[in-house]
């Protein structure tokens, strides 16, 4: 089997969490990451109405969420920017924040940090293949 370059694998995993594991033929791990991390990320984005991907609203927390490539993509479009109020308007007008906004931002941050862990696992498995489980019993269902 032709192996993909590591950089290409990292970019794939960053953009779509779990894809790197799937391309490395680690199906159960890849599928669980694909489902869990993407669900947490999507739930967070929807709960925060895409505010979690906004560098305008969250200049520091954004970098935790940027562990998932989707957050970086959302930050370029930044659909939440239209909710920003400037100058006196920000003082006089009530800014309607969704009830679960903070929870959504937290979920995106957790998804981003989990994906960094997954990226490190992809890199580690490529650098040191001996680390990967050998028997299907200990691996769960892989290989």
């Amino acid at each position, binding site marked *: 089997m032709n192996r993909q370059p590591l950089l290409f694998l990292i970019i794939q995993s960053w953009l779509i969490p779990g894809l790197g594991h799937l391309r490395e033929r680690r199906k*159960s*791990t890849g599928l*669980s*990451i694909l489902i*869990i*991390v993407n669900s*947490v990320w999507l739930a967070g984005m929807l709960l925060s109405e895409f505010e979690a991907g906004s560098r305008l609203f969250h200049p520091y927390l954004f970098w935790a969420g940027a562990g998932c490539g989707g957050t970086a993509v959302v930050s370029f479009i930044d659909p939440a920017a239209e909710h920003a109020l400037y100058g006196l308007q920000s003082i006089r007008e009530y800014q309607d924040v969704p009830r679960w906004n903070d*929870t959504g931002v937290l*979920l995106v941050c*957790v998804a981003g940090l*989990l994906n960094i*862990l*997954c990226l*490190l*696992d992809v890199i580690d498995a490529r650098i040191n293949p*001996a*680390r*990967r*489980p*050998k028997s299907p*019993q*200990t*691996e*769960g269902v892989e290989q």
Partner: protein
Amino acid sequence: MIELLVFLVLTALIAVVHVSVTRIGERKHPVKQEALRYFLSVAGGILVLGLIIQGLSMAFQ
């Protein structure tokens, strides 16, 4: 109560992903068992800590 549910679900999801990507080849237990142990340790530990803090704050009020 819904916050507790969100916390438990999130901790369970983190446990599954964390155990999946940090297991080394020499481990003898299956992923599910390790994830369950991880979840019980982390969620249980945090809940016990929360209860202790709650009890202390009520005692000193």
